[in-house]
């Protein structure tokens, strides 16, 4: 499966790098980390140019995230309109908006590089919960810079064994994503339990 993507990068170079970086931000199941590693490796071999790989990957990833955020915005507006006459669900949504307002930038930052598989969903949620666009853009741009730089460099410096490297990075990425999710769920549970013990207003 990843070999197919290596072939595509070898044949189509920057086009495949750009497309996969863009569409993986929209929850398309593309192994973009493998594409980034291959981009770095082919740059080291002399088939691609390093700065072009980095520039294309970064621009496409940020554009993809912005698209996801905008789609989330549309979805959020639609949801808000539907919730007008359903106060309980509206309260739930309002609570989600509050959580995103408080934790959204942290989520956006870490989901671009550490927990990349969660990235598209965080973007949609951030847009739907009306996270401020400039805060989203700032943390997203910062996180994507780390992601692109890290993965392309890994490919550039250690890409002589691309298959073994891809496996290693995939498992490492999975582990970090699972740990991030576990941490977030733990924090959520603790806060939820604390809130449950507060006396109700009436």
């Amino acid at each position: 499966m990843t070999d197919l993507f290596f072939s595509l990068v070898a044949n189509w170079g920057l086009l495949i790098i750009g497309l996969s970086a863009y569409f993986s931000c929209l929850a398309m199941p593309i192994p973009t980390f493998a594409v980034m590693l291959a981009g770095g490796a082919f740059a080291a071999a002399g088939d691609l140019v390093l700065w072009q790989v980095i520039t294309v990957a970064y621009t496409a990833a940020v554009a993809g995230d912005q698209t996801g955020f905008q789609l989330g915005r549309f979805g959020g507006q639609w949801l808000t309109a539907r919730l007008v006459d359903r106060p309980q669900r509206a309260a739930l949504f309002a609570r989600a908006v509050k959580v995103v307002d408080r934790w959204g930038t942290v989520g956006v930052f870490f989901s671009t590089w550490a927990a990349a598989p969660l990235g598209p969903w965080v973007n949609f949620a951030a847009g739907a919960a009306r996270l401020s666009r400039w805060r989203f853009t700032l943390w997203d741009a910062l996180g994507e810079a780390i992601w692109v730089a890290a993965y392309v460099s890994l490919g550039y410096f250690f890409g002589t064994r691309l298959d073994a490297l891809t496996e290693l990075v995939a498992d490492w990425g999975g582990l970090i994503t699972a740990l991030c999710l576990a941490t977030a769920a733990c924090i959520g549970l603790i806060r939820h339990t604390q809130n449950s013990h507060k006396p109700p207003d009436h």
Partner: protein
Amino acid sequence: MPANHNGFTRRHRTAIRRLLITVLALALLGTTFFAVRLTTATAVWTDPARQFEPIAGWMTPRYVAMSWQVPPEVVGAALSLEQDGMGRKITLAELADLRGVPLHSLTGDLTTAIAAYRAQHP
């Protein structure tokens, strides 16, 4: 249905709690799964017997040269590539197709040439 200070009902609270516990359980399962896989992948990465990956169809001539740490000329000569940059952005699989030969004959030639080069330059 009684609502607390957040406008939440008890049912909502239980649902959120269940959701969080499910996410936590799945995340811990994922952590274990990937930790085991990572251990295997690390063992492969550090195994001295696997420092070179078998030549595959997706590789380009330049990539083979880099991966097997031989001068590009060795690969170029083994594949009878011309010195006009033809090796750029073509995979071995494509090259085999273009020439109407099976891929394993190309990889075989390459493996022999690389072995010969290494024998001469230990």
